């Protein structure tokens, strides 16, 4: 069916005519987030929520410390090859480690990325397709490096940051990939990463 006929049918169902006026939608209502804009509180709430959904949080005071933590995590997870995004912070932290990048993304053991921001209300990470979708999706282990100043209260605030200019794919990721499709038994790592490790800097 063509567009005009299709939408025309809907219009007719509503008893409306082309160009009929449209009332204003209800005033936007943003869910309350019981957390102040104070950065200490934001980080504390984020940390609690992030760990509550099964993420593992590591705090680092400096880039060097972040690098040490990353190095340790890679060894703990027996990571042979990685996918790395070309975000500045990720590059600074990973460069001296001279990690082996996977030739085929399907073979990588871990993905190392940054995030647009962290969402305190739900302990989520906002990931953008601008740096690539695969590194945070395909490997079983997802390692994230993020400045603590990039934590915002809620998804609404995170979306506002983009103004009207959204990337093609924005993902709010909250904890590891999970399923409860077999008898409500929670299992992680069904398609996406089974382990999400966040190194929070500062």
């Amino acid at each position, binding site marked *: 069916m063509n567009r005009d006929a299709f939408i025309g049918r809907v*219009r007719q169902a509503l008893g409306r005519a082309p160009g009929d006026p449209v009332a204003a939608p209800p005033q936007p209502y943003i869910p309350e987030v019981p957390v102040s804009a104070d950065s200490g509180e934001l980080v504390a709430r984020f940390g609690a929520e992030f760990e509550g959904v099964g993420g593992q949080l590591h705090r680092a005071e400096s880039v060097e410390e972040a690098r040490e933590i990353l190095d340790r995590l890679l060894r703990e997870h027996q990571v042979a090859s990685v996918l790395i995004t070309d975000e500045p912070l990720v590059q600074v932290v990973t460069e001296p480690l001279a990690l082996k990048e996977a030739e085929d993304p399907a073979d990588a053991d871990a993905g190392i990325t940054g995030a647009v921001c962290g969402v305190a209300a*739900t302990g989520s990470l906002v990931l953008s397709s601008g740096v690539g979708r695969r590194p945070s999706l395909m490997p079983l282990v997802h390692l994230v490096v993020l400045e603590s100043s990039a934590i915002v209260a809620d998804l609404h605030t995170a979306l506002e940051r983009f103004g009207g200019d959204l990337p*093609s794919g924005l993902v709010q990721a909250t904890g590891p990939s999970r399923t409860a499709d077999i008898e409500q038994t929670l299992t992680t790592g069904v398609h996406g990463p089974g382990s999400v490790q966040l190194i929070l800097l500062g």
Partner: protein
Amino acid sequence: MEITTSRFKENASGALGDSNLQAAMRRATGSFLSRRSAAVADQGDFEALRAYCGAVKAHTLEYLDHYLEQLVDRVEALGGTVHFAADGEEAVRIVTDLAVANGVRTVAKSKSMLSEEIHLNEALEAAGVCPVETDLGEYILQIDGDFPSHIIGPALHKTKEQITQLFHEKLGTAADATVSELTAAARRILRRSFLEADMGVTGVNFAVAETGTIALVENEGNIRFSTSLPRIHLAMMGIEKIVPRMRDLPAFLNVLTRSATGQKASSYISILTGSRRAGEPDGPEAFHLLIVDNGRSSVLADPKLRDVLRCIRCGACLNSCPVYQQVGGHAYGWVYSGPIGAVLDPGLLGLEETQMLPHASSLCGACGEVCPVKIPLPELLVEHRRRAVERGLAPRTERLGIGAYAFIASRPILWNSGTTGGRVAARLLDRGGSLKAGWVPGLASWLKERDFPAPARRSFRELWRRGLKDRA
């Protein structure tokens, strides 16, 4: 799936005799319900959010032509292609033609009730294209040749033993595999499909008119794969999936995930705006949006039923429904089951085929209380029943019953003698607090499918007359 809505009675009595199913249903709905309550309590202003989401949906439906125009303009401005299908047949033709024209051999499919509604998989297979369901629950059903029984947990009617046996036979996993071994096997197999697929097909949870964005909610990551790796992404939606503004989205995501699985946020919420941009390292080259009517505009035209199109498919009304809890989703005979199925199916399929469904309810009101967009489900159930009687579709006994009820209820003398007589009769049938009528023709079949508590020995009217003094 074959439509068997007219055989609800037969389907339901089969379900009531299946102890595996009963155990699975009890476990699943109970766990959904308790997690939902906790998540709702955690969001202090949940009632305000429900009211808001209900109002936004009501507004959007009232001006749906306008919001459809806006959405289509935005998607096209972003370089996407929009297709329109008047019915299911046209919808599957559009998808299969697109697949064939692009040389697509494998389609990675993510859970979409709409695709079940229009029988997409059968049509793709007939066209030589292989559709692979990638949601774990849907995958289990696909390899078993079975159908979803719940909007959120499509395979929740199956026990772990049944799934272990199925995987053992079809995929060669161990006969005593654990849940995580079964999941790992599915991960391995489906990963190959994602890498092979040329096209990802998904549903749409919300489409934002002002930006041309679609939002998809999931826990597993299969939607992220389906929308990231294949070179074509096709998303299909019913006309009712629109919200006006980006600012509306967080509220809807909030009530959806809390109502559906009791999570504050699902693991992954994909907010997709067009296809891969210049400078982005990966992502689909082409984005297609398929908008499907398939009976919805006639529901929209019916002011009494229009509210049913607010539904965001959270499944909370199913979990809260005592009838659904007992009989499961298959008994309803079509993709949408439980209270939402009982009000939506008659709208989409016609009351002739479906008039049993609005009776699959005790009118306890639980569904209306949990619905995150405040659809007045109990009232709509009654409305369908009323129409069925009016159009002479209801079973003869019920038509007579309702006629007689109206006659008697409007005449106090008859009413009083009737209720007294009823109580005397009921005492004769009382077996340990519930009525059994194996020997009364007509009543026996009605009571077979129902637990009917024996009535109080004195009516409220009687007690009231006596000043509630004697409360025996």
